[in-house]
């Protein structure tokens, strides 16, 4: 093989800084970050993007992406993104939020942003618990699932039922594209990337609100190694939170995606 035949097939995306992330080993936050960085790079949007970080394990996301970023108050990222997007409508604006942030603290803000058809993209990490604060029950915690604040397992009689966010937001006319994907295996990750690309294209073409929910693992708070976490996700989360496209508006279904 001559030198010119050497082909780089895997490299650090241009959208990343050279900081090492603080995420636990095996955590899929890093995978989600990478997919976003790759998509924005492929779309040529890196210089035109403003990210909104959540309060949760991804609170320092702005240390890892190398474009403009703001850090929201807990749950308020969609409102903050609205303020930015309305002021600078030609920018690509996205929020990155966990399930406690988006579906508990910020349920009002996310529903309102989706209903307004806000031209923003939301990447939503569903790991069935509050990772950052030590694994408490989240709105997404499954029935019977043990967490540090539901030590006997989530009792639906007193603690209610999990929220299926993608299905919920899909009912809103302002939402143009709402999908759920999983990060627990390679095929899932590939499909997740395609959905993230679609979501950002929807925004670029001004078709409305877009959100991709990503089923994720939290090995640390689940108390499992990475492999068992992935299996647990497949076995327990996938049946409750089926992957799929929950909302594809007519305009989105007719949308042409450049590149890939």
């Amino acid at each position: 093989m001559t030198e010119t035949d050497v082909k780089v097939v895997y490299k650090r995306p241009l959208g990343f800084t050279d900081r090492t992330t603080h995420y636990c080993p095996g955590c899929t936050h890093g995978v989600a970050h990478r997919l976003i960085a790759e998509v924005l790079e492929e779309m040529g949007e890196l210089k035109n993007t403003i990210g909104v970080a959540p309060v949760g394990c991804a609170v320092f996301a702005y240390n890892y992406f190398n474009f403009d970023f703001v850090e929201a108050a807990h749950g308020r990222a969609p409102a903050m993104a609205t303020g930015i997007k309305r002021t600078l409508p030609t920018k690509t604006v996205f929020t990155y939020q966990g399930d406690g942030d988006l579906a508990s603290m910020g349920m009002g803000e996310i529903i309102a942003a989706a209903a307004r058809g806000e031209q923003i993209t939301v990447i939503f990490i569903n790991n069935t618990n509050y990772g950052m604060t030590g694994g408490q029950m989240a709105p997404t915690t499954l029935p019977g699932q043990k967490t540090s604040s539901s030590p006997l397992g989530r009792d639906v009689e007193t603690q209610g039922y999990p929220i299926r966010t993608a299905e919920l937001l899909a009912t809103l006319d302002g939402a143009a594209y709402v999908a759920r994907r999983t990060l627990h295996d390679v095929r899932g990750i590939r499909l997740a990337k395609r959905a993230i690309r679609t979501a950002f294209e929807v925004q670029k073409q001004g078709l409305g609100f877009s959100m991709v929910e990503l089923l994720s693992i939290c090995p640390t708070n689940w108390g499992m190694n990475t492999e068992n976490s992935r299996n647990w996700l497949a076995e327990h989360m996938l049946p409750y939170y089926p992957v799929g496209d929950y909302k594809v508006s007519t305009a989105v279904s007719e949308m042409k995606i450049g590149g890939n």
Partner: protein
Amino acid sequence: MALELIKGNIAIAEAAMRAGLISYFGYPITPQTELLEHLSARMPELGRAFVQAESELGAINMVYGAACTGLRTMTSSSSPGVSLMQEGLSYISGTELPVVIVDVVRGGPGLGNIAPSQADYTQLVHGGGHGEYHLIVLAPASVQEAVDLTGMAFDIAEKYRMVVCLLLDGSLGQMMEPVELPEFKPVRTTPPAWAVGSPDSKERVVMTSINIDPPTQERFNVKMMTRWQEVEKNEVRYKGYYLEDAEYVVVGFGTAGRIALSAVRAAREQGLKIGLLRPISLSPFPTKAVDELADRVKGFLVVEMSNGQMLDDITSIVARRVPVEFYGRMGGMVPYPDEIASAINDLVQGEHDVDVDARGKWLAKMRELVGTGE
């Protein structure tokens, strides 16, 4: 330019647009709503952003995002809504962003009512959100003054990268008065180099209120407090009336100050040497002016449409040199000039006890006057 008869809320909205407001985010609440309604028509007309948010939490966080672009943004509300905004005000302050907010204060606590009040003094002047930060708080006493302060608020907010709040009671928001509106200023639409989305920044921009490392947070707070010292040096505003030869001074801001002025004028006609100090900047407070007066007058009367929130500040500045008396109405009630006139008489003829429990004395009087409803 000709004078126009305009309602306070609408005059502020118009003044903000003329000052170059690019985006507005708000939520309806009486007695502020006309401000939002006016902008809902006018902002889109001029191609600027208007969003009726889902809540005041939504509104202040939209303002937070918009302010990260460094372009002129504002929100307005009334007391219950401003309580909800306290979270955002702390974050915005911790991110050093220029924002203008308007609080058209109403009677409380709780849902209270929609009548004029000044009882948001403490939550705005002494903080309502968590952590160490200051807002600049300006209190107009007429619609014209509200218009003038609105334009200035944006300039000051940008100069110090701080939140500037206009505090006015509900009557000023609702009142119509002849005003001269300023000319339209050129609008800035490109973010400055320090903001996100700017074509001029050399490196990428991150806006955050986190300083996870305590020494860094402490250094940041030292910087913010040093900036506040600058604000205290440069931005104190008040108006004095008949202070030169005054033996007794009434202190009141906004509408209470305006009503007190009638009472002071009446007292002057009776030959009493009474003056009025009307703070315009409640934060930074005209501490020096009060301090100097305390060295030469025989006593103060603080007049507020609250339970004496500014009273505590005056008492601490005067520091028992001369007596400080208090007269206030609460819960959406507005004092009449003769109530203040009678409080002035009590002060002049009183015992001149520097240890007077002004609030206790006033409250005993209030129990007799209005009762406790029990």
